[in-house]
């Protein structure tokens, strides 16, 4: 019996070797065997697409190609009857196959894909830690990014050549991924609505206080208004009024940890503030202590919702949507549904507007200039058999003609053009655009999410998409909001925030990579977790106990190797200052 066991184990061992032998896939230097979904020319492979003089193939219905896409995005794949899918096929002969992985699942899928070494033609990655690049999954695109090959893509990356180039370990800096957001063209019209941070306050609180001046704003003024309002209206619609919500729900704890940097007049650099090009963490500094001690005092006055730290996201949104919350720190995208629910119920006066309190002597820097992301967007995989076709496709999509189709839709169906050449939508069109079912059949959202975009304005002066067309904003403003804006003498919501100065070249520090498995990455996680553990306690404690909890919190932080985080980030800052300046 024992012998049989031994026999089985030996068998297992042999089998295991066999299995491992097969797992040795060709590395990045030897191209992997062709994947299934590579471009083919409808049946006959020698029927190559015609080439332009410069070298990129011309896409046309005469030479149908199939391009396989892999991407991490929260958007849905198009429906089978999608009208733009049909358009791509009719005009360019391009058929796309989609493999979409939801962001939550991306880490795991990425791991096995890299271990397997086979990829679809185009990889649309959010590769903040350069896992795909370092894993040898993508080819350098430099040879295609020239004036006479992929001219539009070249223009897209040209001014930012240096910052987009990445050393994948062979000592040469190359471009692997085309950035998909915040590369701007012409005038930036956007920002009638602003998605950034702020201490939001219910519009009725301001209205009730006679539209106080919001300049030189500070925490005393902000909470003073809230306190007065709670005294005047202890209940709203029969429910107790809630002074302030601390956003601390799972996954969005930055609502609790980020405010000190804004109060101190710094933009969002993640867990650090930067002075004179030197970064340091602020979680244990006075700028943090002042804020949490302030919240502690507000809690003692009963202005802070004690359930802030235990509720789920649904509960948080439900409270905002009930109209009885007067203020919170959040980013605008985070509570969109709650705001919509209030409007749908006709409670426009219960919606929120952002304000920018700061400590004495500081200048508000809540709004920053949109930052182009690096390591996020499409790259061409090493498994792609005809990279020139894939690049030609991306280049074609970058044209203004296709950008309008992707962003605005088809003229006459999805938007109209007035006598001045301005694009607009009718109320029915706007309503239709919100329907997920309709969008699946009429828009290519997943593709568009990852494609490089012509943000800003087109040459004809229209904004790149409807969301940024000023006329669209004014056309959809409610009467209450018009009055509110008038009372403050402002035109858009963005006017409530500071005018963002030019970003420092290294900005923002939060996207400086803390490498996978590094000491800095681990220390950063430990630091965050200590904050999440101690800050709620500090805020909810009796005021007399605050100092003791704070001291314990600071001593816990001392145990973390945060100097390593600062070292890596400062190295990143210096590297960016030295290398990020130039274009091509």
């Amino acid at each position, binding site marked *: 019996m024992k012998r049989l066991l031994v026999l089985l184990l030996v068998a297992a061992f042999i089998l295991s070797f066999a299995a491992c032998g097969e797992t040795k896939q060709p590395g990045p230097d030897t191209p992997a065997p062709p994947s299934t979904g590579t471009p083919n020319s409808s049946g006959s492979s020698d029927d190559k697409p015609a080439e332009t003089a410069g070298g990129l193939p011309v896409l046309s219905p005469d030479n149908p190609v199939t391009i396989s896409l892999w991407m991490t995005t929260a958007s849905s794949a198009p429906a089978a009857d999608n009208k733009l899918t049909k358009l791509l096929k009719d005009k360019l002969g391009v058929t796309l196959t989609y493999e*979409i992985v*939801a962001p939550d699942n991306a880490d795991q899928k990425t791991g096995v894909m890299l271990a397997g070494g086979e990829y679809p033609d185009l990889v649309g990655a959010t590769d903040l830690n350069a896992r795909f690049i370092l894993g040898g999954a993508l080819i350098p695109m430099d040879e295609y990014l020239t004036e006479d090959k992929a001219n539009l893509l070249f223009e897209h990356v040209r001014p930012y050549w240096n910052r987009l180039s990445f050393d994948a370990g062979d000592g040469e800096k190359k471009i692997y991924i085309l950035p998909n957001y915040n590369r701007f063209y012409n005038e930036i019209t956007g920002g009638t609505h602003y998605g950034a941070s702020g201490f939001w306050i219910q519009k009725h609180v301001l209205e009730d206080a006679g539209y106080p001046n919001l300049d030189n704003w500070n925490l005393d003024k902000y909470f003073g208004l809230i306190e007065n309002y709670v005294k005047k209206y202890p209940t709203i619609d029969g429910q107790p009024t809630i002074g302030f919500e601390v956003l601390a729900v799972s996954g969005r704890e930055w609502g609790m940890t980020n405010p000190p940097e804004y109060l101190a007049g710094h933009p969002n650099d993640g867990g650090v503030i930067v002075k004179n090009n030197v970064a340091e963490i602020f979680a244990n500094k006075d700028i943090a202590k002042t804020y949490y001690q302030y919240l502690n005092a507000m809690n003692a006055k009963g202005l802070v919702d004690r359930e802030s730290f235990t509720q789920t996201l649904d509960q948080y949104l439900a409270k905002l949507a009930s109209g009885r919350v007067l203020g919170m720190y959040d980013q605008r995208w985070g509570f969109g549904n709650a705001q*919509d629910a209030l409007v749908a119920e006709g409670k426009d006066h219960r919606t929120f507007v952002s304000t920018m309190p700061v400590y004495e002597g500081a200048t508000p820097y809540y709004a920053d200039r949109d930052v182009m992301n690096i390591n996020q967007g499409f790259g061409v995989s090493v498994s792609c058999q005809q990279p020139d076709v894939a690049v030609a496709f991306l280049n074609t999509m970058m044209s203004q003609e296709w950008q309008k189709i992707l962003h605005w839709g088809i003229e006459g169906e999805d938007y109209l053009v007035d006598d001045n050449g301005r694009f607009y939508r009718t109320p029915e069109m706007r309503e239709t655009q919100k329907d997920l079912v309709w969008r699946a059949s009429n828009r290519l959202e997943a593709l568009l999410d990852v494609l490089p975009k012509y943000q800003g304005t087109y040459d004809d002066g229209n904004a790149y998409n409807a969301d940024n067309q000023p006329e669209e904003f004014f056309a959809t403003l409610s009467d209450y909001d018009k009055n509110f804006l008038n009372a403050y003498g402002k035109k858009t919501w963005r006017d409530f925030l500071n005018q963002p100065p030019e970003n420092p070249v290294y900005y923002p520090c939060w996207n400086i990579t803390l490498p996978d498995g590094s000491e800095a990455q681990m220390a950063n996680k430990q630091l965050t977790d200590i904050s999440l553990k101690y800050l709620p306690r500090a805020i909810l404690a009796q005021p007399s106990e605050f100092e003791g909890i704070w001291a314990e919190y600071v001593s816990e932080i001392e145990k973390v190797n945060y100097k390593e985080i600062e070292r890596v980030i400062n190295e990143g800052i210096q590297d960016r200052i030295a290398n990020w300046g130039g274009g091509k």
Partner: protein
Amino acid sequence: MEPKIEDVSIRIRHRKTDVENIVFTTFNTLIMITLCVVMLYPMLNTLAISFNDGLDTVRGGVYLWPRIFTLQNYRVVLKMDTIYDAFVISVLKMIITVVTNLFFTSMLAYTISRKEYVLRKPITTIFVLTMYFNAGLIPNYLLIKSLGMINTFAAYWVPNIISAFNLIVLRTYIKTIPESFVESARIDGAKEFRIFFQIILPLCVPTMATIALFVAVGSWNSWFDTLIYNSGKQYLSTLQYELQKLLASAMNAGNRTPAATGADAAAAAGGKNTTTPQGIRAAITIVTAVPILVVYPFLQRYFVTGLAIGGVKE
């Protein structure tokens, strides 16, 4: 002994038992009704939310009945053209997994229930241990890949034809079947195959039904295998995986930055097209639970009514 006295004592005992019975039955019924209320609530609440207007749901406080009735959540889910193929794949995957599991589990369970079988212990040990370790995501993936099963239907069922847990449950059950059945068959000259198929298998129906249910539900609810092994081929996608992706995009729509389109104002115009993550999630839950809820009663009679083993004994 005088029969009369015994009669009296029986009668007394009966009366006592009657009272006891009534008290017990009343209590038991009350407990069961309470239980039903408590257990039914989450499903009814989910059902109500699935039929409730998305933005209204955000406000909270929807309990047993939708406040603003809508079919939009279901429209979003059921209009997705990929889910119908995915449904077929899910059903096929479930049926094949259940059939293979029942066959292999029962056959192996029978062999390791034989006390005299010389490999009983090593086999049991080897299977039991598999419950307590996992080689990890990447090694498992590499195995499936080296077997050429990536992006094939085989990746769904071949790695899962038997589970140690079900094996042990069934073995334990078979062991409670009186040995005399097997022995008498053996004396009649029956071979192991025949004993297994003709005598043991029919007696195992209740536990087999349970295992079928466990396997079916496990297979139906799984989406991770699709993600890891088969997400590259749309025609191999499963219902759960498609719905997972839909939920992600519904969450995304909820987190959008409302720019100048004035999402606010459009909503005020009575936007019936707006959906929210909670509503979609509820509709998805109902859509995936319903097939199982429908199938369940058919399996149920096997383990609620039961098979009288005593009856077969002769």
